[in-house]
């Protein structure tokens, strides 16, 4: 984490040559995804975080709480956007397994993760190029480090996962301005199990898999959008020493509403479906609420 704070500091120090301002239109910096990158809630978009336009820099900070029937995820972080071109983000996740792992002697275990993200816009303007189908395109990485606590010896031992991994993605975002509809497609190359909270790869599945992530949003007003997201995930731990399907994982989905009363604050509420999470210990499908607040400067 120290290195990532250093990166963020370097990004901030290189910024004073630029004006700190908010030259982008409302909501066009998106919201903060759970991994810190600007986008929707579960997936990064090609937009650059913050309201910084060309020649400006801006920053965002966020806190997000997802509560399903049997688990809780708290994530918080910050991002810096430079010139509507580069985005550097940090996020810390804390996943509370509550009493689900008590049968393994791990009652109350918290799985934690640190994420450093970098995103680069390579082409297009999602908002202003409204006479073409050309989307805004960005590439990015999310470097993740998992802290599995007392599950570590099992997870990084017989289950064969690694404690760190890097996702690479390409995103295409297009606002169909006349209709007020935004569409995003992200392709992510990843080894992550449950987004990295259960490490990366496994004894039976070690390689990168490319997974699609899809968002669609409708603008109801300038400051209000609602939409749907889908995020496909690998299933590396499905076949493990704990038995077939014991750690099976599912794709993620959500339905969200995002509201930005000003360029300094937005609130996103969602219903999430995270599918099974370690069904051997908790067979119930995990659905629940998601609430995220973002502050922009």
């Amino acid at each position, binding site marked *: 984490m120290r290195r990532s704070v250093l990166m963020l500091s370097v990004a901030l120090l290189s910024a004073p040559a630029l004006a700190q301002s908010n*030259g*982008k239109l409302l909501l066009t910096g998106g919201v903060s995804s759970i991994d810190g990158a600007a986008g929707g809630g579960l997936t990064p978009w090609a937009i650059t975080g913050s309201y910084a*336009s*060309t020649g*400006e820099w801006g920053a965002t900070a966020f806190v997000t709480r997802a509560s399903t029937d049997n688990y809780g995820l708290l994530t918080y972080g910050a991002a810096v956007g430079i010139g509507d071109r580069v985005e550097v983000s940090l996020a810390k996740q804390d996943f509370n397994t509550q009493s689900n792992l008590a049968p393994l002697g791990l009652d109350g275990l918290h799985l934690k993760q640190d994420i450093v993200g970098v995103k680069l816009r390579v082409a297009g*303007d999602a908002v*202003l190029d*409204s*006479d073409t189908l050309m989307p805004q395109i960005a590439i990015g990485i999310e470097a993740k480090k998992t802290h599995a606590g007392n599950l570590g010896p099992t997870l990084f031992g017989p289950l064969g996962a690694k404690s760190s991994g890097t996702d690479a993605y390409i995103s295409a975002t297009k606002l169909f*301005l006349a209709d007020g509809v935004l569409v995003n497609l992200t392709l992510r190359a990843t080894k992550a199990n449950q987004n990295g909270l259960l490490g990366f790869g496994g004894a039976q599945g070690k390689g990168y898999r490319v997974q699609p992530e899809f968002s669609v949003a409708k603008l109801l007003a300038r400051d209000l959008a609602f939409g749907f997201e889908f995020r496909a995930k690998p299933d590396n731990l499905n076949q493990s020493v704990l038995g077939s399907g014991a750690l099976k994982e599912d794709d993620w989905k959500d339905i969200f509403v995002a509201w930005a009363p000003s360029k300094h604050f937005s609130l996103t509420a969602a219903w999430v479906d995270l599918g099974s999470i370690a069904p051997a210990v908790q067979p119930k499908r995990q659905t629940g609420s998601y609430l995220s607040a973002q502050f922009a400067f």
Partner: protein
Amino acid sequence: MPRHALVCLLLASAATVANAAPPANDNVYQAWGGKAGIRAVMEDFVPRLIADPRTGPFFKNVNRENLTTQLTEQLCQEAGGPCTYQGAPMKLVHQDLDIARRDFNALVEILQQSMDAKAIPFAAQNGMLARLAPMHRDIVTSN
């Protein structure tokens, strides 16, 4: 294919559809209340544009009445109405100004204020903005 070649190709394809033909119908024109409705928004918009510190400097030497008339003709045409913008080409009138993307967006925000003030429905606002937004290629001069 190298990335810059891909980007060039995409930009070229974007450029060919820029300066697109007039809209296929006059839905936006009708939703704005015809030419009188468009003129009412422009009469609200031009004073805001001149008063706003973000955009005022760009308009300090313009004739208000002429600007209002030219904008009305232009938006009327872009909305699919029976008008022909006869002012100078967008690129020509902006090329000597130092206009950044944030300045263009500031103008959009001020136009949004005027559209709200004149109760233009949100969908009709977006219909007009979708016609105007591509002009950023001719208006924004500094990146």
